[in-house]
């Protein structure tokens, strides 16, 4: 197990090095003047020029690359041009917000996706199966931005059950966090729950047709035990793969939801950084986010090894 972990960690280093170079190249290749974005719409040419000079944006690109890697080697991700604070601080301030929202959405995704997928498989070709799959299709088809707006109108404006937006940190006000995060989490979760439901259904159907399931039934095991212990446990490997992808999608897909609901997460931070050509923020923020996603994927790999002894022993 330790070997698996170490090998995966070692293979992550070149990934991060390549990502950092690509990110630097891409953000500098995009046309657009960060000084213009920072200075604002009504800025005069003089004001824009002052911003450019003050922030070192008039330096040659190779010099900027050299400085980026030099600072990186010292563990310094630079300072956001837009926010004026260290990139690491800005990212660490926003990351927990996105992670908490993603975790909430993941719980909803798993509950809805796994639950409806299993039920649909067990009730194959019944109205329950049809209804679950129709709902899954609706979830997949509805843009989460549109769904979010509909929820605001229904739950915030008409019913007044939930706030229209804003954010309260989980650790400061758990109930407030629940109120402000529920609509964003649902709008994030529905799309992915639909995806998970369809995959869970097809995987479960495949497993339920296996000989060992028939044998388990023949032995007289209770249905619940057959489904949960034998069928679901064996279906979990492909489902785990999908869940890994879903976690990545939740974190990277929070951009639109965070913008709509005014949630100060990493998605909103990086979107603003890209739109405003905040080079250090994009470079550092994407590097940290990539590192996080790499760690999550390593976690998924470790999960495989725990679920399937063959993987554990093959390394």
């Amino acid at each position, binding site marked *: 197990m330790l070997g698996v972990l170490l090998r995966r960690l070692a293979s992550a280093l070149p990934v991060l090095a390549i990502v950092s170079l690509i990110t630097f190249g891409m953000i500098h290749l*995009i*046309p*657009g*003047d*960060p000084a*213009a*974005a*920072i*200075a*604002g*719409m*009504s*800025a*005069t*040419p*003089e*004001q*824009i*020029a*002052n*911003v450019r000079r*003050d*922030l070192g944006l008039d330096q040659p690109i190779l010099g900027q690359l050299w400085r980026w890697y030099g600072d990186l080697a010292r563990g310094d991700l630079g*300072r956001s*041009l*837009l*926010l*004026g*604070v260290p990139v690491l601080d*800005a990212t660490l*301030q*926003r990351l927990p917000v996105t992670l908490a929202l993603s975790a909430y959405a993941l719980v909803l995704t798993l509950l809805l996706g796994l639950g409806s997928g299993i039920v649909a498989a067990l009730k194959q070709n019944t109205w329950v199966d049809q209804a679950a799959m129709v709902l899954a299709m609706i979830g997949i088809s509805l843009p989460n931005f549109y769904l979010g*707006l509909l929820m*605001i*109108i229904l739950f*915030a*404006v008409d019913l*007044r059950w939930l*706030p*229209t*937006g*804003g*954010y309260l940190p989980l650790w400061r006000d758990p109930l407030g966090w629940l109120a402000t995060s529920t609509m964003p989490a649902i709008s994030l979760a529905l799309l992915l729950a639909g995806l998970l439901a369809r995959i869970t259904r097809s995987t479960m159907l495949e497993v339920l047709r296996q000989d060992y399931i028939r044998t388990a039934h023949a032995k007289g095991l209770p249905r619940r035990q057959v489904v949960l212990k034998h069928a679901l446990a064996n279906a979990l490997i492909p489902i785990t793969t999908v869940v890994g992808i879903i976690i990545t999608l939740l974190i990277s897909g929070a951009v639109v939801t*965070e*913008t*709509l*609901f*005014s*949630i*100060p*997460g990493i998605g*909103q*931070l990086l979107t*603003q950084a890209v*739109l*405003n*050509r905040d080079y250090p923020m994009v470079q550092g923020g994407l590097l940290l986010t990539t590192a996080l996603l790499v760690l999550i994927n390593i976690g998924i790999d470790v999960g495989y090894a725990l679920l399937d002894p063959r993987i554990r022993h093959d390394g």
Partner: protein
Amino acid sequence: MRREFLASVLLFGLTAAADAKPFVCPHVGGDLVFGQEANINTLDQMTSATISTRNIAMNIYESLMTRDENNNPILELAASMTEAPDHLTYTFKLRQGVVFHNGKTLTSADVVASFDRYAKVGNQRSILNNVKGWDAPDPATFVINMKVAQPTFIESLSSFSVPIVIIPAESRDVPAQQLTSPIGTGPFQLVESVPGSHVKLKRFDGYQPNTAFEERTGFGGYKQACLDTVTFRIVTEPGARVAGLQTGELQAVEDLPTKTLPELKKDPNITILPLRNWWIQITTPNTSTPPTDNLTFRRAVQAALDMDEIMDAASDGNYALNVGFQYPNQPDYTDAGKETYNIKDPALAKQLLVESGYGGEPVILLTDKDYPPMYNSALVMQQQLQAVGINAQMKVVDWPTSVQMAGVSDSSWNFFFTGWGTQPALGALATMQFLADPGAVYRPKGDKGDPELLAAWNDMNTLPDAKDRQAAFARMQKIVLEKVYAIPFGSFTKVQGARANVKGFVPFRIPRMANVWFAN
């Protein structure tokens, strides 16, 4: 002549102040949540020209001088200002008893430190180009010494574009954009700033209002914080701002979409507050490249345009037709060059096109979708130009890219679409700098502007008599319009809204939170 500048004399006159009582909050308390449309990048006011920063920071900071409701310069932290007969020295006496949010009493040492920092990192440090230096002969006195007399110096010094806000002397050496814990002398002080989410301010109990006034006026005057706290919540999605206002989660918001106004007007709990003359919707030509290097061609474009159609699309119907670069309610306003505005004569445009020798080459309209008014105005202008036979083509990029491209005099664009907001509000001088060298927005060949235009600009800056400077502005505006160095479409109205129980909230260049209270 020696000029003395006393706040009370300037605005209301001493006689008016005799019996009047200063503003008293009818009700104290409450948290006002304001829905702000744009993210705030920094609260370091000296280094930011963005509206989103000013919206919040100008409730925290104050300056020696600022502008009143009608955009006239007024004293704020200064009790008086004396201009020497040779116009080379300005002596400011500071108001006594003013304290910073950290409890420290304001002295001239803080003013010196603030000017020192502004000269180093201030986003509009050219304000101080003609200044030789400044010093503090005593704790209550601050003196500015000029290299040369500059008749417009007070106008520049009181500018709210990037004001020289007064900060404690300890912050003198903080680098640009890094003043993350703002401490000022304003009626509200910072509680917390969570980028992307909100900025929370609270009433500064040690605030000393400017007793030279009785009421808030513009950015200054007699200010009182009636609210316990103010939360500027970043709500970039218009639909969410509307929903927040309807539910009462937001007590005031900016930039309401026009299509929601009929429904909002029916709601007795909501007050709609139009903020007229928010910006001038405008396009500027690239005169370095064909065919827009040809004056007759530019006049053909000018003749083809129907400003009502363009402004209607740009603003969703919230606009006013407006000649030139100032608004009719401003002292600098002139309609010089009005005969060039809103001609909408396709026949004349076609005739001028023939005279210009135009051969159907592409005319690139450079615009962006980050600001829908810019995109929409370009779209309508494209249709109008095509209708008279001009091969108008849109080039749509994002805002930073369009600004970068418009700063280069190459053949990649012919018209650049933008909005001039803060500068026209500041006055003619601030506005016309867009058309002055270096970096004039009409991109003259070799970055060498039209001598006739520059002569008028020079007169605007240097003539000692205000009337003569105003005449120079009228002359400059006429030249710009006649030579089509810019095509202003009209003035844009921004619509704000507030809950009906919010009192004293009057639309202005920033959401002013002083003298705003909740009705019981």
